[in-house]
């Protein structure tokens, strides 16, 4: 969901200066509409994560970059795993259906015999 700048700052707990800085560093990559920023809940939650890393955890700027890079890869992998699971479920369902059809077919054939 799109949120306005005020809500973004409230949710993420950072100020305008940090927002600009983190966008310059490409830690945050909000969508851009007609020149203006389009900030989302996702961006705010990501900013909050960066704030936790830098503040509470004492991670320095280089560290933040590495963490974000790895976190982004984890989410990429998670997405593929979700797709993989969905594919496997579809395959499994259609296999079960085919097995059932065969069984019913066999029963019908047996009945016809005597």
């Amino acid at each position, binding site marked *: *969901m*799109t*949120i*306005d*700048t005020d809500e973004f700052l409230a*949710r993420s707990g950072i100020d305008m200066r940090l927002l600009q800085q983190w966008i310059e560093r490409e830690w945050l*990559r909000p*969508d*851009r*509409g*007609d*020149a*203006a*920023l*389009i900030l*989302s*809940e*996702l961006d705010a*939650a*990501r900013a*909050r*994560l960066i704030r*936790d890393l830098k503040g*509470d*955890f*004492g991670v320095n700027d280089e560290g933040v970059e590495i*963490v*974000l*890079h790895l*976190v*982004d*890869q*984890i*989410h*990429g*992998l*998670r*997405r*593929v795993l*979700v*797709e*993989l699971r969905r*594919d496997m479920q579809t395959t499994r369902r259609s296999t079960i259906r085919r097995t059932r059809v065969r069984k019913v077919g066999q029963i019908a054939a047996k009945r016809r015999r005597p």
Partner: protein
Amino acid sequence: MAGARVKNPYDILGVAPAASAAEIQSAYRKLAKKLHPDLNPGDKGAEEKFKEVAGAYDLLSDPEKRKRYDAGEIDESGAERPQHQYYRDFADSDFGHYASDGGFADFAQGDDPFADLFRRSAEARANRRGRDLHYRLEISFVESITGGSERITLPTGGTLDVSIPAGIVDGQTLRLKGKGTPGSGKGGPGDALIEIEVRPDPRFKRDGDDITIDLPISLSEAVLGGKIRVPTPTGDVTMTVPAGANSGTTLRLKGKGAPRRGGARGDEFVKLRIVLEKPIDPDLRAFVSNWEAGKAFNPREDIAR
């Protein structure tokens, strides 16, 4: 507070009650790094544990709060952090455009079914369509019937011109193609989706393509008939009230309703309601009190037992 006993914050962080501020911070960082929900995207239990640790740290890292806790003035329950949504909650959904395929790009090289899946996934990400943006627009009842155009000011400062088709209904959504966020690669931009909210009008009610209006008329208009002005969404029109009209008599103004598909229009139904002047004119009062036929008429005959 039996049962729901909250653990001692020193135990949660694993430090002695005499621990220094530096020891507390270091113990917290050690635990939090392991437990932060965004660093454990698949572990649903991490959030609960992290909350506990963060709450304990909030209490003990503030010297004032810690002193009051040690003196028994406040307990652990005040230290709970308010709920917040973590990055992982959004990143797992389709909106997570930060997610990268660096973790599996090599798997996409082969020619097995998995490689195929990885390729498709990477391709889908490279050519992701822009997001749809949702807006809400309130228009007047009259505009919902006549149509028109509105300019929305976006939260980003830009504007969006919306042309409102005549006859739109409350809750309907207009799609402006390509007015969402830009896509990446070959994925086109998303759309702007505008949900229309029609402000009720004290005069008109809508019933499908038809409109109804309750129209007050005077006693003399009802008895003698005559021409009266009736509001419609497209402006006032003149209508003839037949002599002897009654409260509840409904007249139809053809084609004054909402447009239908195919060019025709619904109708406006005018429901008359006789309204007596207040206070009652002495002449009318004098007439009615001597009016025998009027006293003999019983309008409740049908419902009387």
